[in-house]
Every structure is written in C-alpha cells, then in structure tokens.
C-alpha cells in the first residue's frame, strides 16, 4: 500500500514531470481532493488544467470544424481539441473506468509521441501535446482501459481521510524542472529497476521506463545531479509495486519445497542471478516489496490481473446502443431524431454558391444540401456459457463438455459474437470471463477451468440471468448455453440438499423464461437426466443431451437458438 509520505512525493514528481501521469483510485473524497489541490498548487502558475468529460467525442478530444465560427466567417475555421489545449498541463479524466477504449488509444498516441495528429473535417494538423493525465478511477468492478493504465506512472489512493499533503512548493518544482534534463542515471540503476520489474512479473517495458523517469525526477527534486539509491527505491515503490503480478522469489529459498516445483524459467533465473550479485537491485526490490498491494496474493490466486483489465467497457456500449456507430452520411432532412452533419451539408452546398448568387460571407443552403449522419445499431450477441464444473459433472464428462464449448466458440467466432464464461461449482457461481470479443482468452479460461465440489445450479442460473440482463441493457442480444448434468444439490442460500436445490433452480428458471432470454441446455450426464430436461422446459430453452451431440447437431442447435433469440429481441 502506498505510504502517506510517498503520496506527497508523487504529487511533487507529477508537478516536475506532468507527463508521468497518475491514476487516482477510489470514490470522490477528501483524499482525492487533497491530492488534486496539492498538485494544482505545486504546478507553475498558468499551467493548463483541462477536464475530459465522460463520453467526450472525437470533436472535443481532437478538434475539428468550429461550427459557429465557420458559419459566421463563411469559411472553414478549425477548433482545437482538448488534447491540444491541455498541452504542457494536465488533463483530468472523470470516470476513467468508463473511458472508451478508442479514446484511450488516442490518449495513448498523444502520450507516446508528445503531439496530437488530426486528420479531420478537412483539416490536417500536428500540434504539440505534452500532457499529464490524471485519471479519476471510481471503478469497483470496472477499470480504465489497459492501454491507458500502461502509460500512467502512479497509482494513488483517492479514498481516505485526506489531510494536508506535504508536496514541494512551486519554487522547488521550478528548480527541479531546470535540473531534470541533466540528471545522470547510471547503468546499475537502470539494471536494478529493470530487474525489479522482472521479479515482480511486470511484462510491459513501459513500467521500467516510467520508473527511470520517476527516479530522475526524484533526484532533481532532491537537488541531486545523479540518481541515488533513495530515488530508485521511491520509483520502485511508486511505479513498480502497484503493477506487480507476482510476489518476487527470494534469492535464498527459505526451505526445501515439499512438492517438486517446475524449474524457474530463464527469465527468473536471470533475475535471480542478478539479484544475488547486485545489492543495489536487492534493495530496490525490497523497497517495492514492502508496499505490494495487500490483495495481490488473493488476486493472483483468483487468476485475475491486478493491473488493469482488458475487457470491454460497459459505458461505451451503452451509449453505442443508444445511437449506434456512425457509418457515414446520406442526403436527407434532419427530422425524426436524425442528426445533421454540418460539414457534409456545407460541402454539398459549396459547389452551387455562385449559381445561387450567394453574397460573400453568407452561404446559401437549400433543402437538397442537407446531409444527415447514419448510425448502425450494434446487433451482435453475447453468448454466456454456464459450465457446470461440479464434482458430479467432472466425473461424468467435463472434458467432453469443454469440447462442446470449444465447438460452440468456433460458431461464435464466425458470427463475431462476444462470449462470457460462468462456472458453477462448490458453493456458487463465478464469472470467470466477463463478456469479451477475444475467443482466445475464452479458450484459455476454459482450459484452466477446474472441476469438483457441489452443484449450485440455482446460483448459476441466477448469475446467468443477471449477466443476460446486463447484456441486454447494453443493447446486445444475450444467449445462454448451460452445460450441466442436472444433478443440482446446493440451494440458492448455499445449503446442501437435492429437493431444495431443485426447487430453487426451477424458480430461477421461471424468471429466466419470463425475461424471455434464449438459451440452450446441454445435458452432459452419461444418460439424459430428467432434471436437465425439466430445467430446459422451465427456462423455455432448447434441450440437447450430449450423447447425441455430434458436431453437426450441436451447431444446428446453436443456430436454432440464436435465430430464436434474435427474433425475440
């Protein structure tokens, strides 16, 4: 966890080198305000501070045609976007966890190249854009796009009691900025940071790069001309520790492991060798290790990446569903909610200005010139796989069920569907994979799916129902595929017992039917199980016992179910 004194240091570093960027995690609170306030005070007077509103369009972000000015002047007038306006200063992103991946990619390009290139609305420009991103991340089960997080140096806690943050004042920042370029980073220092990043399992090379920048900034703030050990330790604590995906291996293993482990890979051996011969690297790593996130172990055990997620982002899709993706313009009047595309309209009107006898400075636009934007609603569907991986199913034919899912995944690939994976085992259901377009990930997830435990079928159904509702809210068509042997034995409240479990499952199934979602129940037991069939009837899903499920039959069943789903949606 970040130390209180490190927060002040991070604020100072941001003021010296805003391009480092920072992610502020947690709901709005005194701490977040205090950090933002401290940063504002530390930055030189007159530094730009722009806010990126949630759901900002490309027009705002990159700039484009200034409508009002264009109409007033009678010639195209360009407008600078937020990125260009924030040059040299800070761009604050509200609700970063809902940031569109496309916006993140634009921000990433600006951060990487220090300039923003626009080719929009008839304008072509390259403007300098050296900005620092402060991402306010209030996500609980959502996270900002990985492409952005990869480029932000710090992760600071936004929640907490707040209080005064001890950050350097503007004068100290100014002198540090002057010193920054001259600070020397020795070869050993770079090696130590890279080695520590390896040991912590940080894959991206941007992390050690940012760490070097931070170390240099820290040295500059301290008035040094070369990076010292304290600077490296600070960099490791602030940049590397929050990104850790594994707990570093000790140079000396404490005891003989009981079970023979796989030999460490080359990278780890390298890192270990480096650790033992370089005390500097050791100390840097120790610094990072001291502040590893408390939930790191739990997260690793759960198989989740701590730093960022790579899946989709619901806010965007929600918006997309409301208005669709713009796919060009066509002639037509802006009626019935259609939106006028002014630029295209002006373009259409332009060639006729002389003929129409327009007075210079005024543009004669006729009805025929109107151009409206066309949108396409997303009609893709999301297939939710609910895999019963309980002990009974595992004994039966979990492997075959996995095979069936792979077959269905291939089907999804052809339709460019998104897929989600829920596993049902033990005490409840677990969302192994939130809806994603990456089938490769789905397959990896499936292959790693463990078996064993009870069959909380009702919980699985309930989770699938919630997810399906969420998917529909996003404007997509949900389709569920239940793979179960029908031997439900855990009720919704987690108590064991067959009758209670079956009753609960049927009552959730009734809600499923009421919601009208399409689905497919694949019976994975050796002989068709009556309850699986009953479940299919209760959910109004197609029933398919796996014994007959050869490739062709499965494919046909899925196609049938999908068509049903599309009809109903």
């Amino acid at each position, binding site marked *: 966890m970040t130390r209180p004194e490190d927060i002040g240091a991070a604020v100072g570093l941001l003021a010296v080198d805003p391009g480092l960027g920072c992610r502020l995690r947690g709901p709005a609170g005194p701490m977040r305000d205090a950090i933002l306030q401290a940063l504002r005070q530390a930055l030189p007077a007159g530094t730009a501070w722009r806010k990126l509103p949630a759901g900002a369009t490309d027009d705002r972000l990159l700039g484009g045609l200034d409508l009002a000015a264009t109409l007033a002047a009678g010639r*195209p007038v360009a407008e600078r976007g937020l990125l260009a306006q924030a040059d040299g200063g800070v761009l604050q992103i509200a609700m970063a966890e809902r940031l569109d991946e496309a916006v993140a990619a634009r921000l990433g390009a600006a951060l990487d190249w220090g300039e923003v290139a626009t080719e929009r609305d008839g304008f072509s420009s390259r403007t300098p854009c050296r900005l620092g991103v402060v991402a306010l991340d209030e996500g609980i089960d959502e996270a900002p796009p990985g492409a952005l997080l990869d480029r932000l140096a710090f992760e600071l806690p936004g929640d907490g009691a707040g209080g005064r943050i001890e950050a350097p004042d503007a004068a100290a920042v100014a002198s540090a900025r002057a010193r920054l370029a001259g600070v020397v980073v020795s070869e050993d220092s770079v090696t130590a940071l890279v080695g520590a990043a390896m040991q912590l399992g940080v894959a991206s090379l941007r992390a050690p790069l940012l760490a070097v920048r931070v170390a240099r900034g820290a040295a500059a703030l301290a008035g040094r001309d070369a990076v010292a050990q304290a600077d490296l330790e600070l960099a490791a604590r602030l940049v590397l520790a929050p990104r850790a995906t594994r707990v570093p291996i000790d140079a000396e293993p404490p005891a003989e492991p009981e079970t023979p482990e796989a030999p460490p890979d080359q990278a780890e051996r390298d890192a270990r060798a480096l650790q033992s011969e370089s005390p500097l690297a050791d100390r840097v790593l120790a610094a990072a290790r001291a502040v590893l996130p408390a939930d790191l172990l739990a997260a690793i055990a759960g198989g989740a990446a701590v730093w960022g997620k790579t899946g989709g982002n619901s806010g965007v899709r929600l918006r997309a569903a409301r208005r669709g993706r713009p796919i060009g313009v066509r002639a037509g009047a802006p009626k019935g909610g259609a939106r006028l595309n002014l630029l295209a309209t002006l373009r259409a009107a*332009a060639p006729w200005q002389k003929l129409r006898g327009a007075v210079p400075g005024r543009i004669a636009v006729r009805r025929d010139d109107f151009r409206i934007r066309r949108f396409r609603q997303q009609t893709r569907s999301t297939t939710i796989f609910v895999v019963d991986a309980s002990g009974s199913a595992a004994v039966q034919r979990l492997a075959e069920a996995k095979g069936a899912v792979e077959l269905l995944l291939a089907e999804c690939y052809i339709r460019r569907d998104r897929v989600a994976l829920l596993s049902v085992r033990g005490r409840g259901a677990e969302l192994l994979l939130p809806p994603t377009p990456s089938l490769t990930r*789905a397959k990896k997830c499936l292959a790693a799916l463990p078996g064993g435990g009870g069959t909380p079928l009702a919980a699985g159904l309930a989770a699938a129902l919630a997810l399906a509702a969420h998917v529909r809210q996003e404007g997509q068509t949900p389709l569920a595929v239940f793979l179960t042997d029908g031997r439900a034995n855990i009720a919704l409240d987690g108590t064991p017992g067959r009758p209670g479990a079956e009753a609960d499952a049927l009552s959730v199934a009734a809600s499923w039917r009421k919601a009208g979602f399409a689905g497919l129940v694949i019976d994975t037991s050796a002989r068709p199980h009556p309850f699986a069939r009953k479940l299919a009837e209760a959910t109004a899903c197609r029933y398919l016992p796996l014994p007959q499920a050869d490739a062709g039959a499965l494919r046909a069943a899925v196609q049938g179910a999908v068509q049903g789903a599309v009809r109903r949606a």
Partner: protein
Amino acid sequence: MKQALLIAAADPSIGGVLVFGDRGTGKSTAIRALAALLPPMQIVAGCPYNCDPAAHFAHCVAGCPARAGGATPAAVSVPVPVVDLPLGATEDRVVGALDLERALTAGERAFEPGLLARANRGFLYIDEANLLEDFLVDLLLDVAASGENVVEREGISVRHPARFVLVGSGNPEEGELRPQLLDRFGLSVEVTTPQDIPTRVEVVRRRDAYDRDPASFGARYAAGDSAIRERIFAARAALKTITVSDDMLTEAATLCQTLGTDGLRGELTLIRAARALAALEGRAEVTSMALRSVAPSALRHRLRRDPLDEAGSSVRVERALMELYPV
C-alpha cells in the same frame, strides 16, 4: 518484425505488414523508425500525388504540374512518405474531398487530396488497426489492392494513383481483426516482450537516452541507418535479377499444401518475400533457407482457421517446417 518491414521496403508489392503484439513492445516505434531507413525517391516537383517523373503521366490527375506544363517536369528528391493514419481520422481526410475553403470563398470546385494521395509510393501506417472503423478499413484495403483511389463525392470525380504499403499494428487483447482482413496483409508478425534482463536494460537505456537528447541519439545510429538504406537500395535493384528455381517453387507449394492454406496468395507471397530476402542478403537466387525464414510471417495468418488456436498458428507453421526439413 524488422525483417518483415525490410522485405516490404525492398518489394512494396508484397502487400503490407501486420504487426500484432502486447503493449509496450515498441511496435509503433519500430514502424516510425522506418522512414529514416528508406532511400529517398524522385517525384515531380509540387505533385500532391508523389508522381514518379520517370513514369508515364497519362494516369496522373489534373492539377499535377507535370501534366499541366507538357514540358519535362522538374524532379525533386524527397524522403519516402511514411504516413500515419491517426485514430479518429475522418473519411474526407483519408480519401480526399472537396476543398471547402476554396469552395466557400472562391466558389471553385477543387479537390483536396487526402492521406491516400500523400501515402502514394510510400507507407501508410495504421496504429491500433483493430480499433479503426470497419468502413474505413474496407476502404483502405480496397485502395491498397487496386492501387488507385477513386473519389466520387460532392460533385467531384477524381481518380489518382495510391500505391502504398499498408502497415497495421494492434494488440490482440483489444479485439481481433476480421478474418477477411487478415489475409489481405502480405506478412504478419507477432511481437513479444523480451524476457531477458540485458535486452530489457538496453531497451530502457536507449529509450531514456533518446528522451533526453534525440539529436545526438539519432547521430549515434546514423551510420547504421545509412548502411541499411544502402542495403534496401541495392536489394531493390537486384530484385529482378534473382532467380527462383523450380525446386524452390515446388518447396513453397508443398509447404502451403501441408498447411492447407486457402488460395494461391500464400505461395505467391512466400516466393516474393523469399526473393526480397535473398535480395537483401545479396544472394543471386532464392534458397531454401530464405524460404524457411520467411514462411512463418508469410503464412501464419493464412491457415484455415481454427479460431481458438490463434496462438497456435505460428506453431503450426513451425511444425510443418520441421516435417519438411527434418534436421
């Protein structure tokens, strides 16, 4: 990746390079560095479409000074364009559109060339190709395949040459590319993060040096750059003289058959890439080694897809190579 880019530089007809890899592996950096490595080219002075003065002007568009003058046009030497297609680019800037300013102020109907014109005879780079709007991707592929950009909009009708090497990059975790799109690219490479400490240290050190002093950093590598430039130049000249024996053609065909690639594009690209590699290495004929060395990037994305075996397609090519060339 470097090999694929050099091959595309030596033989632009190879049909584009697709680069897929994790975050922070330097995909964009490598592609942008390409501009410095390319030998300069001759263009007609002032031509917005980078016309070749040695070529026949008949196909050049009105507005090109070469065509207007009638006399021998002045030629200038310019660096080969490596045009960046920024995210959020609009269609009118990509294909070109009516020059709004001139239309509104002077009442003239003039064509303002877009990025495709600027990229003619050079490279067009799309970062995050998987995030680009589908209709723009279709448009680019269509132009890249035909070598000509046809604009019919807003009362203007223009067709101009647009021959460029399409280079796309992306991160597979952020969504896959449509399968139709994949095999339009000639070569496809996968980039991974280096996993050994010395390489990683070197990367960080160089990047840091560049950030602090770009000018002296560039100077330090200038000699290496110009050596590569010479190599590309020589390879282009040698390309036509390189012979491909029937044995090599048979080997390429056998390899493609073993892998079950669709169509003949695989063989063609394989042979072309091997020829370009031979040219780059200064050989007189295509060898089995060259063929083997380019096979993964030329064929990886053309296998009949087992969609779930995305990571495995490189392995499949390797396996087929092992079968054909037992060590």
